[in-house]
């Protein structure tokens, strides 16, 4: 009996098994990259803006803009006019709260009094309408600067530059306002608990002097969603600095009444309704509506405006 299969070394067999395994698993559970979803969102953002712009009377729009800007400046970004880091003639940046304590009305935390305020709040809009980060403040003992401060005209966002040599530290407190990857990833679970806070630590950016990030989700919310606060840290490889950051995260508190909002709220267990007709009966979530109920006993139900879209169908067989 002829066997055309070449005899493989154990290394060749291992390589082949590995290739098959990785391709097989990736085929079973492919990477979720959905460019069309990005584009839809990009168009939605653009369309919403242009629609609003067309509909509002110019005078009314001006009034609303003034009110919104004033409200945002007072309530959300009390130090909107914080100077560019390194600008010598500007006053020192500040953040809401007192020395060693941050409190912006939405959340609060403690930090070492030896830390300086390197930047107050600013809106970090990088290149596109799809991506925006709201920075609440930058603190620490190191040097820091950013190239991503409303840089739409420059078209470049080279990212933060932090110098934490000599055991220094830089801490950036921010949240996503919009992100092309702002997908609800239910199931991303906390991987560390500090004080009363179950948070998610991501060391992925630590390579090459990057940052370690602690994510703190809103009550009732998911990680990776809008509103989740990120504590990004340069210099946490130093054990003393790491202890400082962990103490900061442990002291983090959401203000009462702050909850997650939007599409990334975990879906509660649905209440059930009961279908019983034509000799067929079963339970289904009360949030579903019957889409078609033809007289022959076939029917369709589901909900199409929720993620993931779900439709079901059943037919009685006589």
């Amino acid at each position, binding site marked *: 009996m002829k066997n055309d299969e070449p005899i493989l*070394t*154990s*290394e060749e*067999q*291992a*390589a082949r*098994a*590995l*290739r*098959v*395994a*990785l*391709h*097989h*698993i*990736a085929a*079973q*559970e*492919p*990477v*979720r*990259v959905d*460019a069309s979803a*990005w*584009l839809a969102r*990009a168009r939605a953002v653009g369309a919403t803006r242009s629609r609003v712009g067309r509909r509002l009377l110019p005078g009314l729009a001006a009034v609303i803009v003034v009110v919104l800007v004033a409200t945002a400046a007072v309530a959300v970004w009390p130090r909107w006019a914080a100077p560019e880091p390194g600008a010598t003639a500007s006053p020192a940046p500040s953040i809401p709260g007192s020395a060693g304590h941050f409190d912006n009305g939405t959340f609060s935390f403690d930090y070492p009094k030896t830390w300086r305020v390197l930047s107050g709040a600013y809106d970090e809009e*990088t*290149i*596109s*309408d*799809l*991506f925006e980060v709201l920075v609440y403040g930058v603190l620490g003992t190191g040097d820091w600067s950013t*190239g*991503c401060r409303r840089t*739409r005209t420059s*078209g*470049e*966002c*080279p*990212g933060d530059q932090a110098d934490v040599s000599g055991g220094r530290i830089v801490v950036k407190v921010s949240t996503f306002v919009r*992100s*092309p*990857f702002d*997908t609800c*990833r239910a*199931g*991303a679970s906390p*991987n*560390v608990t500090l004080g009363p806070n179950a948070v998610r*630590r*991501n*060391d*992925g*950016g*630590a*390579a*090459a002097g990057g940052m370690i990030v602690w994510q703190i989700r809103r009550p009732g919310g998911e990680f*990776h969603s809008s509103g989740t606060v990120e504590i990004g840290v340069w210099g946490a490889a130093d054990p003393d600095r790491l202890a400082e950051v962990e103490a900061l995260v442990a002291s983090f508190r959401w203000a009462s009444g702050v909850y997650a909002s939007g599409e990334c709220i975990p879906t509660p267990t649905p209440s059930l309704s009961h279908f019983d007709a034509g000799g067929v009966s079963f339970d289904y979530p009360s949030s579903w509506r019957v889409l078609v109920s033809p007289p022959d006993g076939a029917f369709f139900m589901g909900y199409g405006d929720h993620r993931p879209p779900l439709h079901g169908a059943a037919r009685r067989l006589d």
Partner: protein
Amino acid sequence: MERELVAAARSGDDVAFARLIETEAPRVYRAVLAIVRKPEDAQEVIQDASIRAWRRLGALREDDRWPAWYRRIAVRQAIERAKAAGRRRVRETYIDAAVGHAGLDPSETWAERVDVMRALGRLAADDRAVLGLRFGADLEVPDVAEALGIPLGTAKSRLHRALGRLATALGDGNEE
């Protein structure tokens, strides 16, 4: 074509950037999967790496180096995540539990995949990276070297050693 997309993305074209990611991510995902071994972790690495790439696209000096640049970001993130998980001694959910949970096939073929992923788990993250790039992303060795930022000779020797360790780990697993 790719250079045009990179140039467009650098000037703020989301569509172009989406196309770049859509083209490259599936390949890189397989390499990352070898490093972190759990699909949900690999998904997260790809998303984080893509965000990082988007934010730092201005730092990419040569447009034709986009694939290697993006792969390097993703692989670094994956290695750091794998090392951090090891340091914290996080109890691992093996690939069989993670994926079997999704109701995928519990066949003999699948059991072989599980053996391979378990064997990978006995290797260092750096070894998994070189193997993932070579046999997951299907890159030629020079491209593996570029993605890892190491000399070609180093990549060759590291690949040879990692493959030997994987073969040993698979052999040990079969004897258990």
